């Protein structure tokens, strides 16, 4: 790729903003991937603190146990990537007003936990921010079976899913699969921001 073309892509990403609902396994890893890719502005929303049990898959470190996730994630992103503005929003999303923190971002990433909360969130984004692209993920538990993970697009909803995976209530959450889906969410965000890559 020509350097002018690379510079143009970098400029588009630098001017983009992405909202991330949840800073757990999906959200912390998706945010880090987007920051390293050069997205200029991230709005990360979570109310939780880092727990020792999170470290097997979430982008935190042992000395951050007990810290607010959004603050710890902002610190980690600032260590890894230069020039990214991170709005660390320590907030529990309340049904009926879930879309509010994401009014001004270009793309929303659903990175929440329980099926009910994930569902409510995506429905509120579709309803309250019509046309806003939202990238959701489903089926993060377990290991292997990479070929089952698929990307389904029902614009403006983009869904990364393994339909046959167990619920996290019955299955185990481990870094490789959780991070795979998180990075597929981030990769889909890039496709939304930059358009589908042309390959010869």
């Amino acid at each position: 790729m020509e350097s002018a073309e690379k510079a143009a892509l970098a400029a588009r990403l630098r001017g983009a903003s992405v909202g991330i609902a949840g800073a757990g396994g999906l959200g912390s890893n998706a945010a880090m991937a987007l920051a390293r890719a050069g997205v200029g502005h991230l709005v990360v929303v979570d109310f939780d603190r880092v727990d020792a049990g999170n470290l097997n898959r979430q982008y935190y470190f042992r000395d951050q146990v007990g810290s607010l996730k959004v603050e710890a994630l902002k610190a980690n992103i600032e260590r890894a990537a230069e020039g990214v503005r991170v709005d660390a929003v320590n907030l529990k999303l309340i049904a009926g007003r879930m879309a509010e923190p994401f009014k001004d971002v270009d793309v929303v990433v659903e990175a929440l936990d329980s099926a009910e909360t994930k569902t409510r969130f995506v429905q509120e984004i579709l309803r309250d921010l019509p046309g806003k692209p939202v990238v959701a993920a489903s089926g993060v538990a377990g290991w292997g079976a990479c070929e089952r993970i698929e990307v389904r697009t029902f614009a403006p909803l983009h869904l990364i899913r393994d339909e046959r995976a167990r619920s996290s209530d019955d299955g185990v959450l481990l870094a490789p699969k959780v991070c795979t889906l998180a990075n597929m969410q981030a990769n889909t965000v890039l496709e939304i921001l930059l358009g589908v890559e042309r390959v010869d």
Partner: protein
Amino acid sequence: MSIDVNGDAIPYIEGETISDLLARMSYVFPMLVVVVDGEIVQETDFPSTRFPDGAKIEVIHLTSGG
């Protein structure tokens, strides 16, 4: 006279709405959206949305874990 719901052939009932169909299917998971012939239908529109004979319908839901 049938429709395709998540890959299963189901008898078509004229005038049925998405809400009626979901009740008929007895789904227990929280429904995210329903996609009718590629078009997304939001939950608020389930009671007023009808579909034609032969429609391909996908009921989309999300599994816990994040």
